[in-house]
C-alpha cells in the first residue's frame, strides 16, 4: 500500500535530524497559524501564490533561495565543526550522517540556493531592463517557480522521512546504484533534482524567447544592458544542457528502479558514461550561475562609477564566447579517469582558454572604474571583493586545468577551496550586490548602508579565513569529504577554518540585522525618485516599486544606456518628455496552475521516491487533468483601463518632476 514507506523511516533514534525537523515543523506550523490568524490567506493567494507578475515571481525565487541558503549554510557549519573536532577522534557526526550532510550541502547550494537566486534576479530585472511588461510566457514562469519549490520541499522532507543521498552532490555510480545505496536517499536526490530541473528548463526556454522576441521599440541587441545579455547566454546554456541532466538522472532511475544497466559496474553498464554525461551538464551549470553574476557586476560597476561600461561590445563577445566554450571543458572534472594524454591535453587547453573570456571581463570592469567617479556603496564593495576573490579562484582553476597538476590535487581540499573561491566569490557576492542594488526597486526603500558594509567585511574576511587554510590542507594531501582525519598537524589549519566560519556567521547575522533595521527605518530610507543610484538602464525609469504593468507606454530606446539617454535629455531641457496618450493595457490574469503543479509534483515525487505506484499514477493523472483544465480557460488577459494607467503614470511623473527640480537646484549652487 505505501511502498517502501513505514514508521522506521522517521529517524527517532537520531537526535540531530529529529530535533531539527521538529523545530522546522513547528516554525512552518507557526507561520501557517499566523497567516490564518491574521487572515492573510486571500492576500497571499491573490498577490503572490497565483501571481504571474515577473517581479513577484522573482521575489519569491529570491526568498526561496535565501531560505535554502541558510539551510545549506547550516550544513556547512556542521561539516567544518566536525572536521575541526574529529582529529584522531570520532567527532559528533556518524559517518553515514556526515555523508548525507555534505551531499545535501552541495545539492542544496547549487540547485536550491544559487539557482533560485540567480533565476530570481533574471525574473525581476530582465523584463524591466528590456522595457517590456512581462516575460514571454508568464504562466509558465509561475509553474517553473513552483516546480523548483517542489524540489526544495522534497529535499527538506528527506530530513524527516527517510534519508538523503550519501553519494556527494553528484550521485556517482556504481556507489549510487541499488547494490551500494539501497535506501531512498539517492531517490530523494533524483526526484528533487529532476522536478526542479524541469522547472529550470522551462525558465531557460522562457528567457531565451523573452530576450530574443520581447524587447521595447528601439532595443536592438547591441543596446541591451549587459545583464540582459548574460541572462540570454545563461538561458541558452540551460536549454542546451538541462536536458542532459534530465536524461542522465532518468537513466540512473531506470537502473535503480527496474534493474537496468546503464551505469552498473557489471552486465555491460558503464559508470564512466555517467561521469561524462553528468559533467556535460555540470560544467556548463557553473557558467549558468556565474554569467548572470557577471551581469550584475557589470551593472554595478558602471552605475557606481558613473560611466558607461568599458568595452561593452567586447563584453558581449566574451559572454557569448564563455557561453559556447563552457560546453567544451567538462572532461577536466575527471582527468584522472585515464582518457590518455591527447584527450586530457585538449580539455586542459579548452579549460585554460575559457579563462581568457573571463579575463577580458575583469579588465573591462577595472577600466570601467578608471577615470570614473567611484562611489563606495555596498554593491560596489561586494563587486570589488569579487574581483580580488574571483581572480585568485580563477588562477587556482587554471592551475587545476593543467592535467599533471590536477593529478596531484584531484579530489583534495585544494579543489574544495577552488570551487568555493569561484562560486562564493563569484556568484554569492554578486547575489548580495544585486540584493542591495535592486532592493529599493523591489520594495521602495534602500537597505541600511552601515549594516550592509559590516556584513560585507565580515563575509569577505570570513570567506578567506575559512578557505585559505583549505588550499594549504589540500596541498598537504587532505582529500575532500573526510568524516575524520588522523593527522594531528592539520589541527591548527582546521581550527582557523572553523574560526572563519564563525566570522561568516557574524556576517550573516549582519545581513539579518540590516534587513530588520531597514524595515524599521523604511521611511527614512524611502526611495521617492525611482532612481536611487543614478542608474543607467530602464528599470530605473519606473517608480519604486514599479506598477504591475511596469511601463504605461513602452519606452522608445534611441541609443545604448536607454534610461541614461532619457535622463540627460530631461536634465538638459529642464522638463520631462511630452505626456503621451494613454491606452488600455492587456495583462495576463493570475493563475492557480502553478500552485496546483507544486501539489501534484510534490506528491508524485514523494510517491516515486517511496515507490508508491498507485499514488504516482494518481499524481500523473491529476497532472494531465490539470493540464486539460488549464488549456480550457477562456480568459487569458484582463484590461487595465487607460484612466487607471494615466493615474499611476502621472504619480510617477510627479516624482520625476521633483527629482528634476532637485537636480536643477543642486547644479545651480555655485561650487
Amino acid at each position, binding site marked *: 500500500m505505501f511502498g517502501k514507506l513505514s514508521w522506521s523511516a522517521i529517524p527517532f533514534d537520531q537526535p540531530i535530524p529529529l530535533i531539527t525537523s521538529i523545530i522546522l515543523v513547528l516554525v512552518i506550523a507557526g507561520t501557517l497559524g499566523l497567516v490564518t490568524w491574521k487572515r492573510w490567506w486571500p492576500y497571499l493567494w491573490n498577490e503572490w501564490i497565483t501571481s504571474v507578475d515577473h517581479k513577484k515571481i522573482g521575489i519569491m525565487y529570491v526568498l526561496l533561495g535565501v531560505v535554502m541558503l541558510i539551510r545549506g549554510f547550516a550544513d556547512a557549519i556542521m561539516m567544518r565543526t566536525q572536521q575541526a573536532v574529529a582529529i584522531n577522534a570520532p567527532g559528533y557526526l556518524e559517518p553515514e550522517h556526515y555523508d548525507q550532510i555534505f551531499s545535501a550541502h552541495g545539492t542544496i547550494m547549487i540547485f536550491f540556493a544559487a539557482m533560485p537566486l540567480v533565476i530570481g534576479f533574471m525574473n525581476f530585472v530582465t523584463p524591466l531592463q528590456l522595457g*517590456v511588461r512581462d516575460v*514571454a*510566457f508568464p504562466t509558465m514562469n509561475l509553474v517553473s517557480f513552483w516546480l523548483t519549490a517542489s524540489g526544495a520541499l522534497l529535499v527538506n522532507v528527506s530530513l524527516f522521512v527517510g534519508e538523503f543521498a550519501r553519494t556527494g552532490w553528484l550521485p556517482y555510480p556504481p556507489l549510487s546504484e541499488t547494490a551500494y545505496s539501497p535506501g531512498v536517499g539517492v531517490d530523494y536526490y533524483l526526484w528533487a533534482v529532476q522536478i526542479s530541473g524541469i522547472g529550470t*528548463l522551462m525558465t*531557460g*526556454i*522562457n528567457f*531565451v*524567447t523573452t530576450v*530574443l*522576441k*520581447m*524587447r*521595447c*521599440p*528601439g*532595443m*536592438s*541587441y547591441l*543596446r541591451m544592458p549587459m545583464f540582459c545579455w548574460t541572462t540570454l547566454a545563461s538561458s541558452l546554456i540551460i*536549454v*542546451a*544542457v*538541462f*536536458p*542532459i541532466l*534530465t*536524461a*542522465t538522472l532518468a*537513466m540512473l532511475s*531506470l*537502473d535503480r528502479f*527496474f*534493474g*537496468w*544497466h*546503464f551505469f*552498473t559496474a*557489471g*552486465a*555491460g*553498464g*558503464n559508470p564512466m*558514461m555517467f561521469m561524462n*554525461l553528468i559533467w556535460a551538464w555540470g560544467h556548463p551549470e557553473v557558467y549558468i550561475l556565474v554569467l548572470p553574476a557577471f551581469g550584475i557586476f557589470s551593472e554595478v560597476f558602471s552605475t557606481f562609477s558613473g560611466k558607461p561600461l568599458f568595452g561593452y561590445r567586447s563584453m558581449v563577445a566574451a559572454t557569448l564566447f564563455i557561453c559556447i566554450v563552457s560546453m567544451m571543458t567538462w572532461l577536466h572534472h575527471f582527468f584522472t579517469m585515464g582518457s590518455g594524454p591527447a584527450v586530457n591535453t585538449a580539455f586542459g587547453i579548452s579549460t585554460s582558454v575559457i579563462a581568457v573570456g573571463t579575463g577580458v571581463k575583469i579588465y573591462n570592469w577595472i577600466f570601467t572604474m578608471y577615470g570614473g567617479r567611484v562611489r563606495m556603496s555596498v554593491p560596489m564593495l561586494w563587486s570589488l571583493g569579487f574581483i580580488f576573490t574571483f581572480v585568485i579562484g580563477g588562477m587556482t582553476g587554471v592551475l587545476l586545468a593543467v592535467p599533471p597538476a590536477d593529478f596531484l590535487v584531484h579530489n583534495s581540499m585544494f579543489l574544495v577551496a577552488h570551487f568555493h573561491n569561484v562560486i562564493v566569490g563569484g556568484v554569492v557576492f554578486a547575489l548580495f550586490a544585486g540584493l542591495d542594488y535592486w532592493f529599493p526597486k523591489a520594495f521602495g526603500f534602500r537597505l541600511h548602508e552601515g549594516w550592509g558594509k559590516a556584513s560585507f567585511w565580515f563575509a569577505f574576511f570570513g570567506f578567506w579565513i575559512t578557505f585559505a587554510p583549505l588550499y594549504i590542507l589540500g596541498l598537504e594531501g587532505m582529500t575532500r569529504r573526510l568524516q575524520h582525519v588522523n593527522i594531528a598537524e592539520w589541527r591548527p589549519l582546521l581550527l582557523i577554518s572553523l574560526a572563519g566560519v564563525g566570522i561568516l556567521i557574524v556576517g550573516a547575522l549582519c545581513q539579518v540585522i540590516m534587513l530588520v533595521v531597514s524595515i524599521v527605518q523604511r521611511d527614512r530610507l524611502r526611495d521617492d525618485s525611482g532612481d536611487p543610484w543614478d542608474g543607467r538602464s530602464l528599470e530605473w525609469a519606473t517608480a519604486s516599486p514599479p506598477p504591475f504593468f511596469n511601463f504605461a507606454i*513602452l519606452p522608445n530606446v534611441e541609443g545604448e544606456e536607454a534610461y541614461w539617454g532619457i535622463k540627460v535629455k530631461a536634465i538638459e531641457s529642464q522638463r520631462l518628455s511630452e505626456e503621451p496618450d494613454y491606452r488600455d493595457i492587456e495583462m495576463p490574469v493570475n493563475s492557480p496552475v502553478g500552485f496546483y503543479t507544486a501539489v501534484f509534483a510534490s506528491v508524485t515525487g514523494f510517491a516515486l521516491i517511496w515507490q508508491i505506484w498507485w499514488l504516482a499514477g494518481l499524481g500523473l493523472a491529476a497532472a*494531465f487533468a490539470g*493540464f*486539460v483544465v488549464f*488549456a*480550457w480557460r477562456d480568459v*487569458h488577459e484582463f484590461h487595465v483601463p487607460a484612466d487607471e494607467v494615466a493615474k499611476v503614470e502621472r504619480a510617477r511623473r510627479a516624482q520625476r518632476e521633483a527629482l528634476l527640480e532637485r537636480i536643477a537646484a543642486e547644479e545651480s549652487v555655485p561650487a
Partner: protein
Amino acid sequence: MTDHPLPAAVETVRRVREDPHRLGHRGHGHGPVEGAGHGMTGPARKRIIVGYGFWIFLLSDIVLFSCFFAAFAVQRGATAGGPGISQLVEMPRVGWETAALLLSSYTCGLSFAATNARNLLWTQIFLLITGLLGLVFVGLELFEFIDLASRGITPQVSGFLSAFFGLVGLHGLHVTLAGLWLLTMMAQLQVKGFRPEVVHRLICFNLFWHALDIVWIGIFTIVYLMGAVA
C-alpha cells in the same frame, strides 16, 4: 461550418503570400518588420512568441534524445554475453512502423493545411488519421517489445539492451504523449473552434509531431538499418 472548401493547399498558398511578415521570405536589410520582435518595433506578436518558444523547446528535446543516442553508441557492444543488435532487428515490422509514422507526418501536414483554410471538418479528419497512424506505430512497437521480452530479451540483461530499450522506448513514450495531446487538441478544437490560442497550439503540435518523425528517422537508421547490416 466552413468558409473555404478544399483544396486547402490553394488557400494555404494564398495565406502565405499575404503573410504581412513574409516570414522566411524577407530579404535582409530591408528595414524593420512590425511585430516580428526584431528589436526596432517592440515585442513580437503572440503567434511568433509561441512558435519561437516551442522551437526552443524542441531543440532541448532533441538534446534529450541525443543523450540516449550517445548511450546507445557507447553501449552498442556491451552485450554482456546476451544478444546483440542483429538478433533484435526484424525489418518488416520496423518497415511498417516507419511507413505508418512517416505517413502520419504527411496527414499531419494536411491537417494544418486545412487549419490554414479554417476548415474544421478536414482538420479533424486529418488529425484523426494522424492519431490512428500514431496508434499503429505505438502498437507495432509494443508488439516488438512484448515479442522480445517473450524471448528473454529485456533491458535487465545487458547495458546494450538498456540503451536500446531506453532510446526506442523514449521515442515511443513521446509519440504516446503526443497522441494524448492530439486527442485533447481535437476535443478543444471541436468545442472552441479556430480561436487564436487553439491555432497556436495546433502549430506547436504540428512542430512536435514532425520533430518526432525526424528523431525516428535517426533511430531507424542508427539502430535498425545499421543493426540489420551489423
